[in-house]
Structure formats: structure tokens, C-alpha cells
């Protein structure tokens, strides 16, 4: 364990390492499942096609939404949709999205 490294940093590093060798869709599935388990954040991913955001990965669970759905473009092809960020702080959320941007930039859509 590195000194000064938080649980969140360790979690993020592990997820990124595990997702590294996977193709885009399974990698995003893995990230969505992991962030849900670790922080209760409900997210999924879509291919951005103009106005249409077309589902590609992740699974948000069945609970009714109590917050407005948030959409975040990761690049011009892939978007993240969040139905609640669970216990992720705003800073952690920013780091998480930044790491996702790196992840999707390195992978191709099927």
C-alpha cells in the first residue's frame, strides 16, 4: 500500500488495471459494476448519436430515480449517464470521470 493513497485512489487504480485489457463494452460494464458495489453509484454508458444516446454498457438497477438523470460526455462518441453518485464526493467524481475519459480514448467502439 502506498503512503498517502486513499481507498478511493486504490479502488480507481485497481478498476483501471482490470479494465485495461478488456474491450470497450466489457471494460465499461466492469467499471459500472465496480462503482456500484464500492460507492453505490448507478451509472451506465451510451454511444452518442446526435440527440440519441444509445445504450452500450452498465446497468443502473431497478430502483425508481429520485434525482434528475445526469449526462456526461466522455468524448464525442461515448457518454456516461448517472442516476445518483452514491457516496462519491464531488472531487472523487471528477477523478473518476477523468479516468473514464482516458479509458474510452484508448478503446474502440465495436
Amino acid at each position, binding site marked *: 500500500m502506498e503512503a498517502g493513497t486513499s481507498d478511493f485512489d486504490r479502488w480507481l487504480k485497481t478498476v483501471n488495471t482490470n479494465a485495461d485489457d478488456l474491450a470497450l463494452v466489457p471494460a465499461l460494464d466492469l467499471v459500472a459494476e465496480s462503482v456500484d458495489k464500492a460507492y453505490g453509484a448507478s451509472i451506465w454508458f451510451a454511444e452518442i448519436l446526435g440527440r440519441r444516446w*444509445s445504450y452500450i454498457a452498465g446497468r443502473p438497477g*431497478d430502483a*425508481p*430515480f429520485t434525482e*434528475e438523470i445526469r*449526462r456526461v460526455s466522455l468524448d464525442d462518441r461515448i457518454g456516461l449517464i448517472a442516476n445518483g453518485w452514491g457516496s462519491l464526493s464531488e472531487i472523487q467524481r471528477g477523478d473518476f470521470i477523468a479516468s473514464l475519459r482516458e479509458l474510452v480514448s484508448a478503446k474502440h467502439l465495436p
Partner: protein
Amino acid sequence: MSATALDEWTAGIVKQDETLRYLEGGEDFIDDDGIESLLERHRSPDPRQVRDIIDRSLSLERLEPHQTAALLNVQDPALWEEMFEAAREVKNRVYGPRIVTFAPLYLSNLCVNSCLYCGFRQENTGEKRRHLSIEEVRKETEVLVSLGHKRLIVVYGEHPISDVHYIADTIRTIYDTKVGDGEIRRVNINAAPQSVADFKILKDIGIGTYQVFQETYHHKTYQKMHPRGPKADYQWRLYALHRAQQAGIDDVAIGALFGLYDWKFEVMGLLYHAIELEDKFGGVGPHTISFPRLEPAANVPLSPDNPYKVSDRDFKRLVAVIRLSVPYTGMILTARESAEIRREVINVGCTQTDASSRIGIGAYSETYGRQEAERQQFLLGDIRSLDEVVLELAEMGYLTSFCTAGYRCGRTGDYFMNIAKKGKVHQFCIPNAILTLKEYLIEYASEETRNVGEKLIQERLNDVPEELRPAVKARLKDIENGSRDLRF
């Protein structure tokens, strides 16, 4: 375009390799004899068996073909009443008391096909042929936006002038058109079957649902009804949605034109089509099923008064059986039907309907208020305004929904099908129906509709899960204060 160039274009449409790859043992998935025999074997279903099948539907499980065949053959009127009630209940469990509303927009009536029942058929010299320019598309869209519409089904004839590039250009125009705060938020299309490459073009511009109807699933009848043109190829059309899915379009819609062949056979065909799509595409079946009835059209050889004409009684029955057979799929009832029939049939499981419909080319901006047979595909049975339809639905207890949230936040394809099959769609649909109806009532409704609609919204807030209700109420306030396009 010269006749030779037109012939060459037409001859190049069907790409056999894009059909053959889906066949199994050289056969498609519609076995005419098998369907006829299944219907025969279940000609007199036991009422206990029928009630077991109804229970299966109520648990939101898709029926197997032999079960649907049994339902189609029920004779006892009392048992049919039980089925109507179950169909209504199934729809409410999955979608809640809301009806999604849209308008059709016909952009072109040029067509290379020769369908015996269609006013657009190539041989119909009485039809005024036309396709709308981009500027005319904008004008039509502005009228529809001004009425309050948020969702369209855009219809194109099959012709080089209205090819995939025209479709793409017109959809971009529709999406770009705004009138004040109003805009079309979801464009679905009904167009001829495309190649995989052309479907990719449609996918990339962000269409909502791609819809194509088989018209009739009965092979021999299909050949008789479609003697020439690309549409004469049964399998090219049957596998259009396979190609669309292969190209990445994950919301696809099926339908049959009732009145060309035996209605029971067509219901079975729709079910087999739904099963085939689910089997081949990871459980993602059709997003919606349509069941138009044949209507009169100008200068066509086939009259609706043929031996396969579907009576009003049988029409209601077939809609209920489709609902029970595929409990989680959207079902579209259109303005082909009269207002009276729509009132009756909407209660047995329909989820979507159109309003203020005009199907003449340019009819919204040029001749609003009447029908012209010589530039329509057929004649409509109900041309009431959107406001009248919203009012009537509200009086029946239905929220008119203008919601287009799902496809703008990734609730498409596999995701949508997953929540629909669990009966969870209403968790989004009811709050979003309430919010979009509120917006309509403020911006577009008559005073009478506004009063009835506001009362209904207050009642329907009770259907919203308790934990979500405060958030919905807060957004209703935001809409009253000027916010628009809020959604869950």
C-alpha cells in the same frame, strides 16, 4: 430521372447476401403450414387452459406460439371479456396509465413499388407525386411543433429521390427546427428496408425507432400483393430489422397490415417475428408493434371489402391477444381508426397513439383541416386535433405523454427491454408523462383541456412511488416557473 436509371436503381436495392446470411436451412422463420396447423390444433381451447395462459401474461412472460394460437381461437364472449381486462391490466403493470402521443409526417409519395392496396403504388397516375424540399420540411415541422408535438414518425416512399441521404437530411432538419421553446425531441422513421451500410447512416444521425411493417406474413399473399419492385422480395423485407440491428439500431418496430390475409395468421406472424428478434439479438425484441387495418385508398386494385376484412369485434380481439402475447412491448393504435374505435381499443393494451394527423404530402402547412385522397396513401378515420385527443384521454384517466427521455439518456435496446420485461418502465414513464403533460398544458392546451389535465396530474401523482413524489412535485413547480424539458 430516366426510366432506365430508375430501373437500375431499383434493381440494385435488394442485396441477396444480406438476406441469405440470416436464413436457417435455406428457410426464413415464418412457416406458413406450421402456423396454420398450430391454429387448427388449438381450435377449441379449454377455458382452464386459457385462464392459465392469461395468468402467464399477467406475470409479464411472453407467450409461446401454441398459447397465442389458443387465445386466438377463444369463442366464449365472457372469456374474451376476461382477456380484455387482463390485457388492460398487463399494460398498466408495465407502462402505467399513460399514452405516448406522436404525429405522422409524410415527406414523399414517390414510390417504385406496386402494392395492390396502396395509393402510392407506381401505377397510380392519379396520385400527385411530390417530395418535400428541406425548406418545406422545416415548415411542416414548425406547424407540428406549434401544436405541441414532441415526437414524430416520419414516412418515406421507396424511391431514389427519397433515398437514405434524403432521409438523413430531412431528419437533421426536423431536429434543428425550433419554435420558441418547442422542438421535436424524437424522430422515428418508417421507411423501406435498407442495406446494412445505409442503416448505419440512419443510426449515425440518431433516429428514434426504425419501423417497417411486413404487411402480411403469409408468403403467397405477400407475393400477390407486391407484384413488382424491391418490395416483391419477402425476405428482404422480413430481415430488414435484422440488418438494422446489425447496423447498431437497437430500437426497431414491427407491424402487419390487417385485412390482407387471415387476422389470426398475422398475429402469429407478429409473434414469431418478435421471438426471432429476441433470439437473435440478445433478448431485444421489437420496441413497438403496430396493427393497422386496411383502409380505402384512391385508384388501387384491392378494396378493404375483401374476404379478409377485419371486423371491429375481431380488431379489438387481435389487439388484446397481441398485448397478452408480448406483454412488455409498446403497441401503437393510429388515426386510421375512427375516434369511436380508438376509444374502445385503446383500453385493451395500447401504449401509443397519434393525434392531429394529416398524411398528405405537405398537408400540415398547406391544407391543414382536410384530407386529399390523391396525395395520401389511404384515408384516415380520425383527424381530431391534438388538444381534443389529450382532453379525451384525460377524461378516460390517461396521461398523454410527450416523453422522449429514454432515448436521450441511454434507456434503449437491451436496457429498455430489460426494464420493460421486469415491468419497471412505469417508474420512469409516469413521472415523465406528468412532467411533459404539464408542459403541454401550459404552452399549448385549451382552457378546458388544461383544467381537466391539471386535475388528472394531481390524481396521478399518487401513482408515483412515494420516494420520488417530492422530486416530481418540485419539477412541476419548476415548469410552472418556466423550466422546460425536465425529466427523470
